[in-house]
């Protein structure tokens, strides 16, 4: 009996210690675990997976550090999935102290994507450069022989300057690639700038070139003009190749994803965005005018957003459902903490939610669907042992209580 009395009055710090052990020990080993994916998560996955490339999804950061371990793996997994499917992402949030978490997840996902496609991208840029060089070399030869034929020493020198501009341009593109490996938006700006610079200089040189020979020989001018037109075509082709390569292999801020930042007044924003996002988000989080973000060109309200995912630890998902969902027909997915998930099941059954990720388990199921083991999958063994500990505690507590009860009854 003494033992049972001791058991019911155990120092709670012993329970605390057991909890630490239950979580810590499985964390130190990697345990492979098979996942069965529940229907709500599968639905969420399908909703995103079935979107057409180029569709816009909106991710709302409605959690903060208090639920980081649950919601962060979700936003990481869904961003990763969206980038793989070539979806474009708008990030915003209703909880200021959580917004940076979403920002980090998004930028990290973009950086990882770019990192894993770096080789292909570099290859594509190199190929485009070589292509251009091959063409320009041919033209240079042709021009040289034409100049020799028409006895035009003077213009050859100018033509050589033009050529040096081309190689200069190529070099600038290369060095920008080295310099801005992480910040693809700046990188793209630098490349664009180099291109514009080149076009300006080249145009100036061409004018000079034509001015120098006009009086002398119309036949030669014709050749020069034709060459210049060809030149332009190839430079444009090169620039297009660069753009295509970037589209294909890079995730760039302002083109593939934007971060609109935080605005207060949850419901007011949700309703207002049904008309025009810009009324609330005039600038993005880094003071860039939203109108100048290329990606936002054709995005104005919920009509232009394929799916909205709210990562939440409070009532935000319900606000999205009641206002964006009901009033504007926005498709909504919830990525929520375990505490919130039971609240949302009625919406799942009514079809107001297209899918639901609940807690660490939900996140780990999504990770298994995109076949990328992340923080959630790594935490699941510890989650399991801790659950078993809590179940054991409940059962031991209850059984001790039964024994005490019987003992008391016998005493009286």
């Amino acid at each position, binding site marked *: 009996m003494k033992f049972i009395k001791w058991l019911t009055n155990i120092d*709670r710090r012993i329970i605390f210690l057991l909890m630490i052990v239950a979580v810590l020990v499985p964390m130190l080993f990697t345990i492979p*675990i098979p996942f069965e994916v529940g229907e709500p998560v599968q639905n969420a996955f399908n909703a995103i997976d079935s979107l057409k490339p180029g569709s816009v999804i909106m991710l709302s950061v409605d959690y903060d550090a208090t639920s980081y371990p649950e919601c962060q793996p979700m936003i990481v997994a869904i961003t990763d999935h969206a980038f793989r499917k070539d979806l474009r992402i708008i990030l915003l949030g209703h909880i200021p102290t959580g917004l940076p978490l979403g920002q*980090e997840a998004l930028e990290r996902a973009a950086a990882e994507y770019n990192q894993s496609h770096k080789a292909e991208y570099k290859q594509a840029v190199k190929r485009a450069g070589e292509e251009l060089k091959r063409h320009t070399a041919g033209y240079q030869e042709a021009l040289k022989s034409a100049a020799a034929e028409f006895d035009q020493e003077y213009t050859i020198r100018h033509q050589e300057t033009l050529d040096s501009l081309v190689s200069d341009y190529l070099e600038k593109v290369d060095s920008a690639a080295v310099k801005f490996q992480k910040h693809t938006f700046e990188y793209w700006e630098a490349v664009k700038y180099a291109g514009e610079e080149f076009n300006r200089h080249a145009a100036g040189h061409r004018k000079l070139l034509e001015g120098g020979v006009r009086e002398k020989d119309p036949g030669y001018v014709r050749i020069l003009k034709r060459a210049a037109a060809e030149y332009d075509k190839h430079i444009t082709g090169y620039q297009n190749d660069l753009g295509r390569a970037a589209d294909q292999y890079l995730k760039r801020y302002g083109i593939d994803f934007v971060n609109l930042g935080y605005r207060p007044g949850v419901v*007011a924003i949700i309703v207002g965005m049904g008309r025009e996002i810009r009324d609330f988000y005039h600038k993005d989080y*880094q003071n860039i005018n939203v109108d100048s973000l290329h990606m936002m060109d054709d995005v104005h309200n919920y009509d232009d957003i394929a799916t909205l995912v709210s990562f939440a630890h409070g009532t935000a998902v319900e606000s999205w459902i009641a206002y964006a969902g009901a009033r504007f027909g926005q498709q909504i997915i919830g990525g929520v903490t375990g505490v919130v998930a039971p609240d949302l099941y009625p919406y799942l059954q009514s079809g107001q939610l297209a899918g639901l990720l609940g807690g660490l388990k939900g996140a780990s199921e999504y990770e298994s669907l995109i076949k990328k083991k992340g923080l959630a999958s790594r935490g699941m063994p510890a989650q399991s042992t801790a659950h078993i500990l809590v179940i054991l505690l409940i059962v031991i507590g*209850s059984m001790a209580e039964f024994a005490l*009860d019987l003992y008391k009854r016998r005493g009286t």
Partner: protein
Amino acid sequence: MKRTLPLVITFLAGVFVVVTFFIPREPFGSLEQRMLVWASILGGFTLLLGIDSLIKHHGRKLARGEKDWFYSLVTLVGLFGTLAAGIVTWVKYGTPLELASLDKVGGFFWVYKWIMVPLQGTMFALLAFFIASAAYRAFRARTFDATLLLVAAILVMIGRLSMGVIPATLVLAVLLTAAGIHRLLIRKPVFGAVLAAAGVSLGALVLAFPQDAIRLAPQVQEWLMSVPQTAARRGILIGVTLGTIAMSIRIILGIERTYISST
């Protein structure tokens, strides 16, 4: 001015929004949009509301050298230090939230990542310990309702396991059997027999078909969540929503006015 005007403002704003919902044409639509933008802006100002009393409270404690003045100093240093970090980052990068690159972050972001996140996160992590302790102390299968609650909780927890389904289910079987025996001994034969039988058969089934148990556990959990849980939750939700609607109408009509008297 002090009481009537706010009531009039509330009434007009509320009625206007409801009217716009039904007649979203111009000029209502764009006017409502402007109101919503203003509401958002006002929301920004409310973020600043508590700050004065916080500074006053801790400033006073510090100035008078009251007991625990050191902690007030910590709060104020944290406050002004973070403000400084925010302003410096803002000036330097044009935004306080600069994540200059993934391993070299702006000052404000640094404070966020390494001070704010661990503090906030760990405070909530403490709840894991308290809930474990509460489970041990307060959760008792005393009555029918309590047993139901307990069994539902344990089934849900088992359904979210990624390993250890068999031992956890066996523990549940032991609990049911023990509860049944307890009821039998205190002369509640029917309930006791049912519980004990349920416990023994659950245990036997799990031992006999372990693979099926592992497969079924998540499905049982999902069913519990999506049928009985959803039903009760929806009942509560419908009630709460009716309450919200009634409250909103009372606010618009000026019957409910606690928000005015709180100032």
